[in-house]
């Protein structure tokens, strides 16, 4: 689905991605893991075209990104921070995006019902709590039935109920053949959701492959320990 080749990105003197190559397989949930500032968000943003790489290429189904912008109609994006125009309501925001994307199919409002927003949808977004905004964010990501979903720390700020609703949605959509790129600091969450893991460290891919494979290599039973083991080996090497 996504093929990143030799992607390099520097911000000033800081090299965030260093000749990174990675393949994201279709129909699977790929968890991006790595220490803080390892370049996970930058990679996700490069796929979205929000950040322009210094060199290297990214292809989605063989089509290089950046040629035109229509490829983004296939992507649903849930950013880490959910801040919207302060004076618009969530409903107006949904309207706006529908208006801009002009979907050919009906929109997916399953999350809208499951999250139980109550009257929050008509309040200005500035009056909403962080968790509620994050729910709005999640609704937006799935709304246009994209076949690639990029979720950046999706459950941060969500209460357990909402977090459960979101995870169920991810699993249901994965079963329907959608591809996910997921970053999270919560390893147990990735353990639960991810099929593949890409471990990024110092702007390079330290490991990419199936979750089970990582556990076998590191002889650990869960992802958190497996990643810790990888980091230790990295430090030793």
């Amino acid at each position, binding site marked *: 689905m996504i093929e990143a080749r030799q992607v390099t990105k520097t911000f000033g003197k800081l090299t965030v991605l260093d000749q990174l190559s990675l393949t994201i397989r279709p129909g699977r949930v790929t968890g991006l893991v790595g220490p803080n500032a390892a370049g996970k968000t930058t990679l996700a943003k490069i796929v979205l075209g929000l950040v322009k790489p210094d060199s290297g290429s990214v292809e989605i189904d063989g089509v290089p990104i950046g040629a035109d912008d229509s490829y983004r109609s296939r992507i649903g994006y849930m*950013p880490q921070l959910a801040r919207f125009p302060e*004076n618009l309501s969530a409903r*107006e925001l949904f309207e706006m995006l529908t208006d801009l994307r002009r979907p050919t199919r009906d929109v997916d409002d399953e999350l809208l019902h499951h999250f139980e927003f109550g009257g929050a949808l008509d309040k*200005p977004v500035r009056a909403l709590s962080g968790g509620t905004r994050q729910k709005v964010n999640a609704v*937006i990501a799935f709304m246009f039935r994209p076949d690639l979903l990029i979720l950046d720390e999706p459950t941060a700020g969500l209460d357990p109920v909402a977090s459960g609703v979101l995870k169920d949605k991810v699993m249901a959509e994965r079963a329907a053949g959608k591809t996910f790129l997921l970053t999270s600091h919560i390893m147990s969450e990735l353990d639960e959701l991810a099929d593949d893991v890409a471990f990024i460290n110092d702007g390079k891919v330290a490991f990419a492959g199936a979750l089970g494979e990582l556990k076998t290599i590191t002889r650990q039973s869960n992802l958190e320990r497996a990643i810790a083991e990888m980091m230790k080996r990295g430090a030793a090497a």
Partner: protein
Amino acid sequence: MKTTAKVAGYEIRDVIRSRWLIGYALFFLLITDALFRFGGGGEKALLSLVNVVLFLIPLVAIVFSTVYLYAAREFIELLLAQPIRRSQVFSGLYLGLALPLALSFVAAIAVPFMVHRGAATAQPGTFAALLLIGVALTLIFVALAFLIVARTEDRMKGLGIAVAVWLFLAVLYDGLVLLLVSIMADHPVERPLLALMLVNPMDLARVALLMQFDVAALLGYTGAILQKFFGRSVGIGATSLAILVWVVAPLLAGMRAFRRKDF
């Protein structure tokens, strides 16, 4: 084009609910009304208004836009994650900020003018020029804000630059020009001074506006030279052209910076 209009439309819906914008419109409304009411509504009232317009519009346009754009960072990211072109997002955002600012100024000035029409002795042409220049200044300083925000990651630094740009163009620039004139007192400085005036949009706006009045004394040094150099009608043409260049240039520079920016 359609996408640009949509982005602008939703942003306008957001911006017009901002208390700052409402306050800005009310301020102009009250001050214009007061000037007509107590100032007799003649040229004097308009002249006072000119001074307010020249200082306040650039300040509000650049500061409001800078603050808005930094606060809207995640919203801009959301827009850029949609299948629309960056240039469309930029144009939409620009119009969505510039139009409400410009229109609230126009409405706040025009309404008292209409109400006190009987009392107004000033030329309608002068009044129209004031509106046009106010709109042009809005467009210029909103574009400068885009340029600053696209090139400055840190919001406090960006805001500082915005205020500094205004302060420089509004106050310091004239002081520097005067300093230059006094240093170069023995040389013919008319032509370089004209060039210097064209470089500052606020100087340009002032000269273009004051040329509408018969008050050469208020034109300032550069304005008096311009009047002498060009004569009235050519002078108006030249300043209008220069203002147009000033509207377009920061806009293109802002667009360029926006398209290259990493979000």
